[in-house]
């Protein structure tokens, strides 16, 4: 087994373990932390695919900011009810595992169908030429600001609306010192 294959399988298992941990662990803080493990594993997978910029941005935005806020908010709640509310028992457990199995079966089936029945994937040379320092970021920036500039700007407006809306909603209910 080459180093690449080992790295891929290890990271794939880490991502899947983290993702399964999110839905199967009962303590919400542990769930959030296993989601962090998923994010970091996905960033590492990006590195093996030589998308270094995406890996760095994934770490900065997802693992470094979004998940920190998730965990912070979860720490402010009283979680004893949450831990017990998530049911135990064999029927419910079988249902959980069945649901996870169906979803993963769907995803694996879709990926297998696409890869087995289409043309050859892009060659290593086209992938390699897009991977040197600014060379990898330049095509990304060009496609973002030339081809998809409308979507990019609309996403910015959407984020602004979300921020303003969150502040407005909390103020209408009395702000941070509301009962």
């Amino acid at each position, binding site marked *: 087994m*080459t180093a690449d294959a080992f790295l891929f399988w290890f990271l794939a298992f880490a991502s899947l373990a983290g993702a399964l941990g999110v839905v199967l662990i009962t303590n919400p803080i542990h769930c959030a932390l296993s989601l962090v493990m998923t994010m*970091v594993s996905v960033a590492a997978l990006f590195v093996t695919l030589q998308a270094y910029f995406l890996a760095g941005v994934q*770490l900065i935005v997802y693992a470094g900011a979004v998940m920190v806020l998730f965990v912070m908010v979860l720490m402010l709640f009283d979680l004893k009810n949450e831990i017990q509310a998530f049911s135990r028992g064999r029927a419910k457990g079988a249902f959980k595992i069945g649901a996870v199995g169906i979803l993963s079966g769907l995803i694996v089936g879709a990926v297998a169908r696409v890869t087995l029945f289409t043309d050859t994937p892009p060659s290593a040379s086209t992938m390699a030429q897009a991977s040197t*320092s600014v060379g990898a970021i330049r095509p990304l920036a060009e496609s973002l600001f030339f081809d998809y500039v409308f979507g990019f700007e609309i996403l910015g407006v959407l984020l602004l609306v979300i921020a303003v809306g969150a502040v407005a909603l909390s103020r209408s209910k009395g702000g941070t010192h509301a009962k």
Partner: protein
Amino acid sequence: MTSAMTSMGATGLEITVNLIKTVLVFLMMVQAVPILVWLERRGSAFIQNRFGPNRVGPLGLVQLLADAVKFLTKEDFVPEKGSRFMFYAAPIFALIPAAIAYMAIPMSVPLKLDSAMIKATFLIQGFEINVGIVFVLGVSSLAAYTILMAGWGSGSKYSLMGALRASAQIISYELALGLSIVGVILLYGSFSLTEMIAAQQGVLKFSMFGYTVACDYLPNWGIFYQPLGMMLFFAATFAESNRLPFDLAEGEAELVAGFHTEYGGFKMLMFFIGEYGHMMIASGLMATFFFGGYSIWSYTPQEVYQWLYAWVGSAQLANILNTAVHFLSYNIKFAFFLWIFIWVRWTLPRFRYDQLMDIGWKTMLPWALANAMITATLIFVGSYFAF
């Protein structure tokens, strides 16, 4: 999928040396901590007109070794209401972001060995990362989890409050940190730290509006191009490493000791290794972005190499001496900024928490944005229009 491991080196020797280098950089970071703690304790003592530890060993240098032995023999306990897994995981996790991020900082000119036995080029850094600064920012933003895990795992209110405050502070100042660097990235047109250092060599010379401005006795360092960026970056890194004046999260008067209240013994030392590790990354990045990295004033490494070659006469020896001299130059800048961290800690009073968050969001973020916009405008206008 092309091999990720070929970037570790072509021959067996290169791969081995690169692996050893990774371990060495980590050890370097960990071993610098006792020296820094000594510097802090003695330096703070002199600032406060007292002596500091001066009994154990010459000048008190062995004090921290004695402290480490003391910590090793302390009782190992977990608070009853805390989460055992997170209580143990948090100090270990404190070491990881700082160590990984420090790998990306180039510390000297690459060592080119060209003799009959070995013919290789070794980079004097942990690992060459071509999106250097994005990687460093991404990994050091994982430091917030250490604090959260420590606060939650301790199971006490002081710890949790301190942890929430500290992590809120860290993610707020991450924004100001990232934005203050945008000006530098725009200026040098690259994320890679090696390229940034290469662009800062030589004398101060830039062209704008068709005119070329040159000054022969100033180096081409980033501080002359981005003074505001430098000040914002330096201030933001104080907040990122939870150092005074931003250390309300560990303020003794308010929160006992914040998120590491319940920690004792070696686990607490590991938190401090992480904190000093972040200080080291901050100093290294300051030197790299704004002070030319390993370059010596305004002399390019080639000029230094020529001077050394004329002095020793052997190309091999001149190469090795070149690397060593630039490593020394980097370390001098590195030590200087670390000393400033320590100096500021014992000089300025700390900010109140609401003042701290106000500064991060309402002062530093707008200024950093303005800096980025002005830099971008000047770069574009300066190269586009020539009078």
